[in-house]
Structure formats: C-alpha cells, structure tokens
C-alpha cells in the first residue's frame, strides 16, 4: 500500500486532495502527487482541495487530467526523494520505460497534455512531451514535418510562400 513516507511533512496517512476537471469529473489523488504541479502545490499548501470542496481545473478535461495524474502518481515518489539521488538504477530505468510508453500516444492527446502541463506548471511532464514533439520535428524536411504534425495540405499560395522562404534560406535546410 502506502509507500514509505520519505521523512518530511505529510502527517501520517497520505493526505488526499480532490481535483475537478472541466467536465465536472472528480479525481481523488494523493497531495504529494498533485504537488508535482507548482500551481496546485500552492493551493494545497494553503490547505485547499481537501474535504468536500476540491480544486476546480476549468482548463483541463477529464481525459487529459487522468493522464496527467497517471504521470504525477508515477513520478511522485522520485520527486519526494528530491530528484533521484538515492534512487536505484532499476527505479530510474523503470521511470524511463514508463515515460517512453507514456508519450507513445495520439498527437491530439500529446498537445492537450503539454497544454495542461503548461497550465499546471508540471515541469517534468511539459519537458517530456515537448521532447517528444521536438523529436517528431527533428531531421525532417518542412513537408515531412507538416505531414507528421498533421498540418492540412498547403494551399497553392502557402506552397509558393514556403518555396520562396526555402529558396532564401536554403542553407538552413541542408
């Protein structure tokens, strides 16, 4: 059950907080996990989110929030240990494996995730997703990037603009 508490702060049984997504779904989660979000951490430190009220998150829908919390719950123990100085290599490998699998998802979900991570200020998650998107851009031609990222096909006018731009800055595309 409860992971061994890492010395600091939380009184006895892990404190739970309730988060409410934009579509009114309530999520109950350990305060330690929710505190990975800088934004929520402040509210939680102020004693918010407990009991019946819960913290409303009007910018995050339930599908995204459950994904965000999945990340937070997985990463909370490592974060509580102050980064991971005393984490074993196995733990770290396990987290890495989790991260890799975690971002292996539909693009639209990725974008919702990075937006939520941005709003909630979850540095690790934002970085993880940004890296994934950056990897989708890396080493590709503009047209390939457009295709990969699901841009609509360029209009003839747009295409002409792209060509002119590429002619001018061909060096950047070598």
């Amino acid at each position, binding site marked *: 059950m409860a992971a061994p508490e890492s010395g600091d702060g939380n009184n006895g049984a892990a404190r739970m907080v309730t988060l409410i997504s934009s579509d009114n779904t309530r*999520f109950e989660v350990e305060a330690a996990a929710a505190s990975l979000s800088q934004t929520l951490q402040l509210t939680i430190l102020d004693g918010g989110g407990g009991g019946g009220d819960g913290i409303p998150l009007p910018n995050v829908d339930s599908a995204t929030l459950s994904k965000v919390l999945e990340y937070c719950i997985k990463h909370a123990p490592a974060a509580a240990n102050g980064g991971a100085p005393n984490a074993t290599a196995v733990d770290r490998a396990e987290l890495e494996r989790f991260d890799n699998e975690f971002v292996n998802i539909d693009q639209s979900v990725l*974008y919702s995730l990075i*937006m939520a991570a941005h709003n909630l200020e979850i540095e690790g998650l934002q970085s993880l997703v940004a890296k994934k*998107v950056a990897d989708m851009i890396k080493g590709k031609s503009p047209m390939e990037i457009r295709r990969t990222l699901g841009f609509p096909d360029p209009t003839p006018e747009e295409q002409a603009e792209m060509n002119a731009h590429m002619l001018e800055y061909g060096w950047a595309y070598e």
Partner: protein
Amino acid sequence: MSMQQRSGGEVGAAKRVTASDDGAGGEDCLSALPDDVLIYILRHLDTDEAARTSVLSRRWRRVWTLLPSFSRTPSPPVKCLCSISTSRSRMPLPNPWRRGFPPPRAGSPVNCPFTTSIRPPTVRRRRLREALLSCLASTRPPRSAST
C-alpha cells in the same frame, strides 16, 4: 496510491477529440497552442532546426524568433597541437578565441587555445541573424493565438 474517479457529469472526451480528425482541413492542433508552449518545444531543438520551422506556415514564421537564446551546435573538439610537444604546452599562448568563446575545459593543457572546439561561428550566426530579421519583418507583431 490509487486514483479514484467519480463521475459527476457527462464525460467530455468527445469535445476534445473533434479537433484531431486526421487529414481533413482546418488548423492543426499544434499550431493552435500558444507561443509559450511552442517555444518550449523549439527549445528542445538546435537553433538551425528551430529556424527551419519558420517555413511551416505563417503561424510558425516568427515563433522561433522568440527563443530566449541561440544554441550553437558544438563541433567535435579539435586535437590540440600543443599537446604533442609537451615542453611547449605550458607556454602562455595568445587566445584567439577569447571573445565570445568559453575558456578551455579543465583538464586540457594550460592556456592552450586550440582545445576548445573550433566552430565556424561567423557565417552561421550572420545567416541566422538575417533569417531572424527577415522572419520578424515578414509577420505582424505578436497576437494571442487562441483562435
């Protein structure tokens, strides 16, 4: 360690998914994100690569110009000539790379200017600057991208 989910309203997944209809026209979802988030993504790319995104669409023309700094791809360190003749390596040599370049790393021969990686900075930086100015000039000032 568990997460309980109590449903208190209609599940709104459908609302979000509509934006992701594959293929069909309309703005793509990535471009709909605010500048802050796009910059955060571009920061994971080398500056050349980030500059390349300016060609993607008008929306992207100026995003890379908002990057907080330019990263220069380091080329591999060049072998130090001084390290061959050890007797001379301690001589203080003039450092032609002093301006704008990091000092030699710890562990490299003292005062040797040739152990820092030698980059071709000027041409690349000038081109980047030109591209930057052009991208800035070809677009309107920032407008919040929430539409």
